[in-house]
C-alpha cells in the first residue's frame, strides 16, 4: 500500500478525535537550524466543508486494534477493513513535507492498539524522535496516550510533546464496561491520567492534558458527564474535557443505534464554559439538569440555571459584583468587565441603549436585571 492510500485510511480514522492547537506550546529554541515555531494564536490552515478547521495533520499510526470498543470502526467486532500502518520514517517525512508547505500547523498523532499498548507507544515515539531529532522540528505536537501504557513511555511522550491526551470515552465505570470489555476503566485509563499528572511535576507538555468522551453511546446522563468533568478538573489536573456526540459509524458494532443530537454535545460544552470562563461552581452546574438528570435541549444551560434560582435576581446593574453579573443570561465575561469598569469610574448606566453599547444581549438579560432599581420586565412574564 502506498503512502497516499495509507493517509486516506489512517487520516480518516482520526476524524472523530477532537483536538485544537493551543498557544501553550514549547518555546522554540533560538537556533537557526531548527524548523517550526508554534504561532502564538494558533492559526487555522483550512476549513473542511463541515466548517471545522484543519490545522493539524491528524493521523493514526495504525488502524489494527486488539480492543473491542463498540462505537469504533477499528475494533475487533467491526466489519473487517484493510489494516495498515505507517513506517515511522514515512510518517515523519510526510508530515515535514506538509509542514514546510504551510498546509498544517502541527501534528496530532494517535494510534489503534496493535499487539499491546507499549508496542503502539514505541512506534509513536520512534516517529516523533525522527521528527524532532533528525528533521529538527520544534513546532506543535499533540500525542495520544494509549490506555494501559507504562509509566516510562508516558514520561517520554510527555517530555517530547506539547500536549498529550488520553480518551476517557465514558463518564462512569459501568457505562465504560458496557461499551468496551477489553479495557479496565480504573486501571487502564484513570491510573494513566495519574501517571501523566506525576510526569507533570518534572517536565510537562505545556498544552496540558486533555480528554474526550463519547456522549450518549451507552445511555449516560448529562449529570454523569458533569460529575466526571468536576473530578477531571479538580483531581486529575485535566486542562480540558472534550465531548463528541455519539454518531453511528458504518461498520462499527453500534452502527444501527440512533445518533445523539449535536445540541446535546453543544450544551455540555456550554456548561464546561460556565465553569472555566464564567467561574461557576460545579455545585451550581449540577442543579441545571432536570429530573431525568439530562440538560433540556430547548433551553440554554445558563438560562435554565437562572430560572431555577429566581431569588438571585433582579441584579442591579450599577451596584453588583462581577460574579453576580456573570450569572445573568446575556452577560458574558467581557461585558461584565466593562460594567465593572464603569462602576469604578463612577459612571452610572441609565438605560437599555447604554447596555446594548456595552455588548449585552438585551433580550436575554432584561428579565434578570434592574437599572437604577427598576426592573425592566418580570421573571414571571418570561416563564
Amino acid at each position: 500500500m502506498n503512502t497516499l492510500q495509507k493517509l486516506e485510511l489512517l487520516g480518516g480514522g482520526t476524524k472523530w478525535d477532537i483536538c485544537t492547537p493551543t498557544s501553550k506550546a514549547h518555546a522554540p529554541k533560538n537556533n537557526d537550524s531548527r524548523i517550526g515555531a508554534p504561532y502564538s494564536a494558533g492559526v487555522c490552515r483550512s476549513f473542511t466543508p463541515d466548517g471545522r478547521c484543519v490545522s493539524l495533520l491528524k493521523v493514526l499510526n495504525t488502524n489494527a486494534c486488539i480492543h473491542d470498543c463498540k462505537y469504533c470502526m477499528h475494533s475487533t467486532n467491526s466489519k473487517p477493513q484493510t489494516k495498515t500502518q505507517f513506517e515511522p520514517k514515512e510518517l515523519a517525512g510526510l508530515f515535514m513535507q506538509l509542514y514546510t508547505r504551510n498546509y498544517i500547523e502541527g501534528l496530532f498523532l494517535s494510534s489503534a492498539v496493535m499487539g499491546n499498548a507499549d508496542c503502539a507507544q514505541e512506534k509513536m515515539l520512534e516517529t516523533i524522535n525522527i521528527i524532532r531529532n533528525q528533521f529538527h522540528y520544534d513546532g506543535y505536537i499533540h500525542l495520544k496516550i494509549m490506555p494501559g501504557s507504562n509509566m516510562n513511555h508516558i514520561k517520554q511522550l510527555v517530555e517530547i510533546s506539547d500536549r498529550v491526551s488520553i480518551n476517557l470515552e465514558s463518564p462512569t465505570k459501568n457505562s465504560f464496561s458496557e461499551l468496551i470489555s477489553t479495557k479496565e476503566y480504573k486501571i487502564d485509563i484513570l491510573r494513566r491520567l495519574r501517571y501523566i499528572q506525576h510526569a507533570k511535576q518534572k517536565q510537562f507538555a505545556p498544552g496540558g492534558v486533555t480528554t474526550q468522551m463519547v456522549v450518549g453511546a451507552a445511555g449516560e446522563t448529562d449529570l454523569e458527564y458533569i460529575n466526571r468533568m468536576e473530578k477531571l478538573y479538580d483531581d486529575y489536573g485535566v486542562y480540558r474535557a472534550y465531548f463528541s456526540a455519539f454518531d453511528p459509524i458504518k461498520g462499527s458494532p453500534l452502527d444501527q443505534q440512533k445518533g445523539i443530537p449535536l445540541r446535546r454535545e453543544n450544551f455540555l460544552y456550554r456548561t464546561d464554559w460556565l465553569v472555566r470562563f464564567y467561574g461557576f461552581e460545579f455545585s451550581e452546574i449540577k442543579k441545571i439538569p432536570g429530573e431525568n438528570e439530562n440538560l433540556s435541549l430547548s433551553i440554554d444551560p445558563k438560562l435554565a440555571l437562572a430560572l431555577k434560582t429566581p431569588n438571585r435576581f433582579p441584579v442591579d446593574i450599577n451596584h453588583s459584583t462581577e460574579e453576580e453579573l456573570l450569572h445573568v443570561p446575556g452577560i458574558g465575561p467581557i461585558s461584565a468587565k466593562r460594567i465593572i469598569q464603569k462602576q469604578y469610574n463612577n459612571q452610572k448606566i441609565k438605560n437599555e441603549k447604554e447596555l446594548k453599547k456595552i455588548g449585552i444581549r438585551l433580550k436575554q438579560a432584561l428579565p434578570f436585571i434592574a437599572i437604577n432599581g427598576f426592573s425592566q420586565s418580570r421573571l414571571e412574564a418570561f416563564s
Partner: protein
Amino acid sequence: MRNRLRTIERKGDSSLFFASHQLKAFTRFESFPEMLLFGKIASHASFIMNALNFFCYRFPPFVIALYNTPNNRLFVQSKRKDFCYRTIKDFDSSEKALEWLRPLVQKSIKKRLHFGVDWKPEYFERFFETQFIENRKNLRLQKKLMFTNLLDKDSVEFKSLKKFSRTLSNTQLGDFFFSKTPVHTQQQAIQTKKGFLPKNAE
C-alpha cells in the same frame, strides 16, 4: 484587493491583525531542493513584509520567497547566515522570478534537508477530504472563515467552496416580492394541509 485594504484601514488594528493572520494561514509554498520555499500571494507590501518575517522565523533553514501577483514583485528573505539577500525585485512572471532565484540559492546553500518522502499535491487533498464529517456540516461557517481571494483556484479548498456556493441559492431582491413556487403548487399544498390530496396523487 484595494477595496479590502480600505475596509481594513477603516476598521483599524484588529482587522489588520486578522488580515495578516489569514495571510500566514493560507499562503502555500512550493518547496525546492535548494532549501527554497516559494509562495504566490496577493496583498499589500506591508502585509507581505510582515508575513515574510513570520515565515523566516518559522522556517529558519529555508530561503523564503513571496511573489506578489498583482504587481509581479518578488520578496526574498532568509534567516540563514550564508544567504544574506533581502531583496524586492520586479519580474514579468513568477517563472522568470524562479529562474533568477533558484541558481542564486543553489550557489549559496550547500547543505540540504531531505525528508525521505517525495511530495505529491494529492497528499493534502486526500487528507482534507478524509476529515469531512457529513452530519457536522456547517457550510456557512466554512464560507465565513475561508477567503476565496487568498486561495489558489486549483486548490481542493477552493473547489469545495465553489461546490458549496452552488448548493446555496442566492437571494435576490425579487425573491422578497415574488414567490418562486408556482401558484398551482401552492394551492395544492394548502389543500393538502386542509386534508385534500394534491391532484396528481392517486
